[in-house]
């Protein structure tokens, strides 16, 4: 129970930064180098780097929201379903706003996206409410919400993908962005913006501090006057909102609302957070770490694809490397437990 003391000085102010930052980065460098050596030349091309970053966006944004949840000591299994729900809500809202036929105006997609995000935030709020007020473990609450949101998505979408008119949202995830000076897809910029936001919120705001405190020791937080249920609800609502944003990006990618989208994505998202230094028992985790975790997973998928190995070899490889990425962190940072 007595981990090695950290070096004195500046670094110690955010003990979680070290744990959540450097280890995963080493893991990332490791997998990138691995494929750069093993893989075909195109792996190391700029275009491929842009492809990988774009492929990180959806899981990455979901992981940012999940970081709040996991740092607070909870878990959210409904993320995948919420992403699907968000694509469908966005698509349905867009259709409702633009009426029948015709391309959408510039405002409609924005409103539709907000609708998608709002619905997911509401679902997250509900999960949080039940977790915090009725004290059912979040694993079960969100497992229920996972089914409910999936059902809602299918119901809204009439069990089919929802077609939408052409609109600017659909360009948000192009690897070659439309105004070329953007360099990266708008979705990537969104993810980076959110990353900065979440990092600041977690480290420099009272809310962030409280989230860490709740995850570290909820009992203590309560005794210190932290509004534990209120914060928990906010955390899950935030997680939902981020899943909603991930869903909007998913919609941008698919250009349709898809009620079966992102099945099982929750595990990718949680893995990203944990690879990035988050602890499932709460109190640890960082925004940057989670994004790095999501990047590691995207690099793995892309690299394996580039190698052109059969699917089963890829699966075995990805499984092994996920474990190794976390292992590197542990070896670097052994705990005495």
């Amino acid at each position, binding site marked *: 129970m007595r981990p090695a003391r950290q070096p004195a000085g500046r670094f110690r102010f955010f003990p979680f930064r070290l744990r959540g930052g450097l280890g995963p980065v080493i893991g990332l460098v490791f997998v990138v180098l691995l494929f750069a050596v093993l*893989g*075909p*030349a*195109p*792996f*190391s*091309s700029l*275009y*491929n780097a842009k*492809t990988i970053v*774009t*492929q990180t966006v*959806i899981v990455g944004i979901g992981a940012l929201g999940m970081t709040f949840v996991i740092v607070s000591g909870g878990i959210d299994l409904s993320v995948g379903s919420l992403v699907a729900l968000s694509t469908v809500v966005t698509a349905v809202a867009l259709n409702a706003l633009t009426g029948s036929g015709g391309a959408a105006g510039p405002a409609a997609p924005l409103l539709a996206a907000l609708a998608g995000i709002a619905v997911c935030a509401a679902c997250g709020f509900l999960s949080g409410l039940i977790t915090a007020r009725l004290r059912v473990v979040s694993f079960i609450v969100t497992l229920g919400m996972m089914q409910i949101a999936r059902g809602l998505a*299918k119901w809204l*979408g009439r*069990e*089919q*993908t929802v*077609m939408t008119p052409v609109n600017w949202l*659909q360009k948000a*995830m*192009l*690897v*070659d962005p439309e105004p070329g000076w953007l360099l990266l897809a708008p979705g990537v910029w969104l993810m980076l913006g959110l990353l900065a936001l979440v990092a600041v919120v977690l480290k420099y705001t009272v809310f962030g501090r409280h989230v860490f405190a709740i995850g570290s020791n909820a009992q203590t937080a309560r005794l210190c006057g932290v509004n534990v249920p209120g914060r928990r609800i906010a955390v899950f609502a935030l997680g939902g909102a981020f899943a909603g944003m991930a869903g909007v990006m*998913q919609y941008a*990618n*698919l*250009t*349709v609302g*898809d*009620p*079966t*989208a*992102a*099945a*099982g994505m929750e595990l990718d998202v949680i893995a990203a957070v944990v690879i990035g230094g988050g602890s499932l028992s709460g109190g640890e985790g960082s925004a940057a770490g989670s994004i790095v975790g999501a990047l590691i997973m995207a690099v793995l*998928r*892309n690299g394996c*694809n*580039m190698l*052109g190995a*059969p*699917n089963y070899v*890829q*699966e075995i490889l990805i499984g092994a490397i996920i474990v190794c990425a976390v292992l590197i962190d542990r070896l670097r940072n052994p705990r005495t437990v």
Partner: protein
Amino acid sequence: GRPSGEPGAAAPPAIAVIPKGTTHSFWKAVHAGAEKAGRELGAEVIWQGPHKEDDRQMQIQVVQNFISRRVAAIVLAPLDDQALVPPVQAAVNRGIPVVIIDSGLNGDAYRSFVATDNARGGRLCAERLCTLLNGTGKVVMLRYQEGSASTARREAGFLEGMAACGTDIELISTDQYAGATIEKAFQAAQNLLNRFAEIDGIFCPNESSTQGMLRALQTAGRAGDVYFVGFDANETLLKAVRDGEIHGLALQDPFRMGYLGVITAARVLKGEPVAPRIDTGVILLTPDTIDTPAIRALLNPPPAPDA
């Protein structure tokens, strides 16, 4: 690394073939066909499906990765008729032609569409069941999965055919889904059979749902008592046909689909004109026709090389 897909180089052109998944015997046959075409053309065929079956996002990423890898052409069985439009467009923008197989895709970015007429397959099944039932009876259709376009078309074709069959046909359940795997289909079918004591005819629109339903009929001791028509074939289903437990299977020609897909892509690369729609045909297998040469040829395509 090695250079790939560079024009004029000695290396053969790389043609990527992207199935919807890799685990049905249907896709095995597509793979075999594609490889055969590759051998004939002297082209490298890269076979790569999405990691998770039926995940549109995964398939989009596979397409994106092939664009990154600068293959010469892509042969794609899209999981969705709309969602795959942007990546296909991106491929075309980067000078990679795309041929679509199996399921349709919106827009006109692709060069050719090589596939079964799914609605026709569904109608064929309906006609078979109609004959067996003599135009009267209670019929159950167990759907495959939400949002799957090709099976939805088969289901629609089947319903259309049943409607034409007569007013004495009662469709007692058409809104249940089997799900992606055999075992999910099995449970759904079990519960359906428990719910309806009296069923005269059953239709399932693909391999896994047909196999799940077959097993449910067998375990309930009702196999053979109910007229059962399914889609696609594998060893288990063929055995059931011989045992009189399945009374008809719509057969596609996946080998030909893979073969023609790659051939068409190669012709596009050479600048030759190609037809925008190529039908690979569908025929009905019944206990009577199971041993005809045409069916035998379909059932035993040359094996896929082990990757």
